[in-house]
């Protein structure tokens, strides 16, 4: 009985010290991590809505959450470039988040994967950049496709799936198609 109390005390003490130090490290690093994520988000928005650097990007809210973004070429909200949104889908080993830019007709402008933790060497190749190139080859093939009907080649579509990572390829492709449908429905309602 005496041992049980002693062990419980030591374990509690260890847990307190370790979680305390983690809380401290977290409090130091959290603001930096958030700032970096925000900067990355902004960078990705400007990337998928090419031409919006000199214009303005407006967030469209629903129930207090950002549903999608509208990008304009001019700061006074003229010359709509298109819409941007984050599509997320369950991949092989992680929830993959992709920033997508589409023009008002639903054609994909550009995509950028924001977050993935897929199998190294297989699924992670969705972000692989070939030598002498600046854009990941796999993500580039989305440009100009009709966002609502994209499919990977194994499902009869035009998107070449990554060798050994069909699940990853399919997850990203399907999440983009699905989210585009939702967003375009919302923009139609607004415009009418």
């Amino acid at each position, binding site marked *: 009985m005496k*041992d049980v109390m*002693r*062990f419980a005390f*030591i*374990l509690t003490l*260890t*847990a307190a010290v*370790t979680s305390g*130090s*983690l809380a401290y*490290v*977290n409090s*130091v*690093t*959290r603001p*930096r*991590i958030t700032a*970096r994520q925000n900067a990355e988000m902004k960078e990705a928005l400007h990337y998928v809505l090419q031409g919006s650097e000199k214009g303005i990007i407006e967030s469209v809210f629903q129930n207090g959450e950002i549903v999608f973004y509208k990008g304009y070429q001019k700061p006074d909200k003229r010359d709509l470039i298109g819409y941007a949104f984050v599509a997320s889908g369950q991949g092989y080993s992680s929830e993959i988040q992709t920033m997508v830019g589409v023009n008002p007709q639903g054609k994909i402008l550009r995509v950028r994967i924001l977050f993935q*933790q897929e*199998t*190294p*060497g*297989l699924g*992670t190749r969705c972000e692989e950049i070939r*030598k002498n190139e600046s854009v990941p080859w796999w993500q580039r093939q989305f440009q100009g496709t009709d966002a609502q009907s994209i499919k990977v080649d194994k499902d009869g579509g035009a998107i070449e799936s990554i*060798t*050994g990572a069909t699940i990853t390829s399919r997850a990203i492709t399907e999440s983009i198609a699905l989210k585009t449908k939702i967003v375009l429905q919302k923009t139609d309602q607004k415009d009418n």
Partner: protein
Amino acid sequence: MSPGKELIKGFYTENPVFRLMLGLCPVLATSTSVNNGIGMGAATLFVLVCSNVVISLIRKAIPAKIRIPIFIMIIATFVTIVDLVMAGFFPELHESLGIFISLIVVNCIILGRAEAYASKNNVFYAFIDGLGMGLGFTLSMILISSIREILGNGTWLGLEVFGSGYNPVLLMILSPGAFFTIGLLMSFLSWFEGRRSSCVTNF
């Protein structure tokens, strides 16, 4: 027990991957390219040295019956600290290593060395052991991932090895390739070791 011997034992005689056969799951999963191999090796090396040192420091205060949960708490704390600090201060490094960091918690080399070595030796030797084992692990990772990347992708560290005519053996990058590579390397080392020791015992 000499510091030099303790340092180099992780390279061959007690190599964590080929001799102790510890931490094979991350080896299988992350040896698909040399870049990943080095990343996983470096991250493991760091956590191994830190956890060995701390566990050795408090080894006399830990009751034997509850040592495992305490080791795990310390290891998980270090791994999380590395993850957070990297994400906050070295975002580029975190970008490429981030996925491996959380794998280290379940890497049994770390717990194995805490249990078998750091909890029984002083801080200096625990540090040397962590360093040697970590370097041995990193070298094994580089060896395995070199074989897999060269055969399976035709490249080494991203550089073309065979030229454009080479048709990569994709299987080597997929999971079976990891089993083939590690199995063949292990059997080769056992064969080599068997020959070596039979020469020695002839005296």
